[in-house]
């Protein structure tokens, strides 16, 4: 079982690494982080903050793009190219296939993140800004955010074409960061229905702002370990649930 899952994961990883999209995104990310160096003289004494903000922001943003763009076509591509028939003719269970794809993409994200983080720290070093390890906490939380987002991408990928999947996943990403504000907005509405719906959405949609601690780490604010641990657990439970839904959908497909 593990051999089959890791086989699929390794294959997914290899495929994605060869993908030009990934390479282009990585280059872009490094360029954006590097551009902070150009902005430096304009930052009026806030260089260190600007470079850190931009670096953490770029890493998150480009990882999200990778998850959305690469993840969005993972399963669908196999169906479109009919390679899924070859795959499923082998003694591979459907849930193993989904899990393998998921883990493969997470590996891609992990490696991309590692490369970008290395680039980020090199830029910090070159700019003479103390490269505190505290910043890594934010990246760790981003990794948990990506775990959910990748599961969302896989879920959509299992039943809609890549472009639609990318758009939907991006929408979930966007809404996931706004649920708290939407809830506040709805709290002002006199209608109980609107309030009920917003409460429902607040708890059902992934609350990605749980994972945003960029402000805290950049300003060296003390983190709340309990909130971090709970958020991590939240990511795991949410991801598992999404993967279960993906498997349930995928099982109903006739191949």
């Amino acid at each position: 079982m593990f051999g089959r899952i890791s086989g699929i994961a390794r294959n997914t990883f290899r495929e994605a690494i060869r993908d030009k999209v990934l390479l282009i995104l990585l280059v872009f990310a490094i360029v954006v982080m590097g551009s902070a160096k150009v902005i430096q003289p304009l930052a009026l004494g806030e260089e260190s903050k600007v470079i850190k903000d931009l670096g953490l922001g770029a890493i998150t943003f480009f990882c999200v793009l990778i998850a959305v763009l690469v993840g969005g076509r993972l399963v669908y591509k196999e169906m479109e190219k009919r390679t899924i028939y070859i795959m499923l003719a082998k003694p591979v269970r459907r849930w193993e296939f989904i899990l393998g794809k998921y883990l493969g993409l997470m590996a891609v994200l992990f490696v991309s993140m590692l490369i970008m983080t290395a680039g980020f720290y090199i830029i910090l070093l070159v700019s003479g800004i103390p490269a505190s390890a505290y910043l890594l906490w934010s990246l760790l939380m981003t990794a948990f955010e990506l775990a959910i987002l990748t599961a969302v991408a896989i879920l959509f990928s299992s039943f809609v074409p890549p472009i639609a999947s990318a758009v939907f996943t991006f929408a979930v990403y966007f809404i996931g960061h706004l649920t708290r504000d939407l809830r506040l907005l709805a709290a002002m509405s006199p209608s109980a229905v609107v309030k009920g719906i917003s409460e429902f959405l607040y708890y059902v949609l992934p609350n990605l702002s749980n994972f945003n601690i960029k402000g805290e780490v950049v300003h060296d604010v003390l983190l709340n370990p309990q909130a971090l641990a709970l958020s991590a657990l939240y990511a795991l439970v949410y991801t598992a649930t999404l993967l279960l839904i993906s498997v349930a959908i995928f099982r109903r497909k006739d191949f």
Partner: protein
Amino acid sequence: MVEEIKPRVSVPARPGWLSNLLPVVFIIWGFVGVYLLQLAIDSTGKERMREKVVAELMYFPSGKFVREASIEYQQVAADFVWLRGIQYYGYHLMTDRKYEWLGHVFGILTTLDPKFIGAYHFGALTLAWDAHKPNEAVRLLVRGMEANPTNWQLPFYAGFINYMLLKDYEAAGIFFDIASKLPGAWLVVSRWAAVSVAKAGRSEAAREMWLDIYRSTENKALRKLVIRQLSLLKFNDALKGLQQAVDRFHEDKGRFPRNLQELVRTGYVGKIPEEPFGGRFFLEGGKVRSSTPPSRRG
């Protein structure tokens, strides 16, 4: 005897009902788990989130920067700053009643969306009465007037703040005069121009102006602010009336009344007025006081 033909290839069995049901059960449990975890996260992070809201505002460099950064989504950005601003105001109203960043927030907001009239109204009145920064409030309104030269309410509010807080009756008169000449202005506004020229500091005029402010807005938080201010006027009137009665009593009888009820019994006042903040009035060493601490009044 016909031999039964058995198929050589076995057709894979369809997943049974149990294996169909099981994932659904797990998925439901998953969402229950997510719900419980979010509750737990919210309870740990509430203070953190609120602090974060403030921190975010502090680091908003300036409205201009946010304006450029939000490209074609300035209105949306303004809406979110608005939400954050209300949240900030509400939080401090319930807790420490310090509104250090309020002016900054509304500055950003109105730079993002210079035609957001509601933001000027809310920003100006909360700045003036809650944050005790009437000058900053008037500046906000003047900027609003530059962007919205035909809106009569902005100069009306500016006149109001000048009249009530800055006691600059001349400036108030000018603002009311500007307001009264703009399209849609209520007839009463020109009357206010006259009142402020007469430098009347009467609470009756103040009460009526507050009522006009109340009528000029749909914003619930703003209306609450008006109600608080009206209660404060009522409170001050009642306190002043009682104190005058006590002083008269003292002049007539050479001693202070033992309590406020004695004023009623001896006919100095008809009845003890109701204390508008839910406390009660009492007498202490010849001075009328209220059981509501000053910080909870208005």
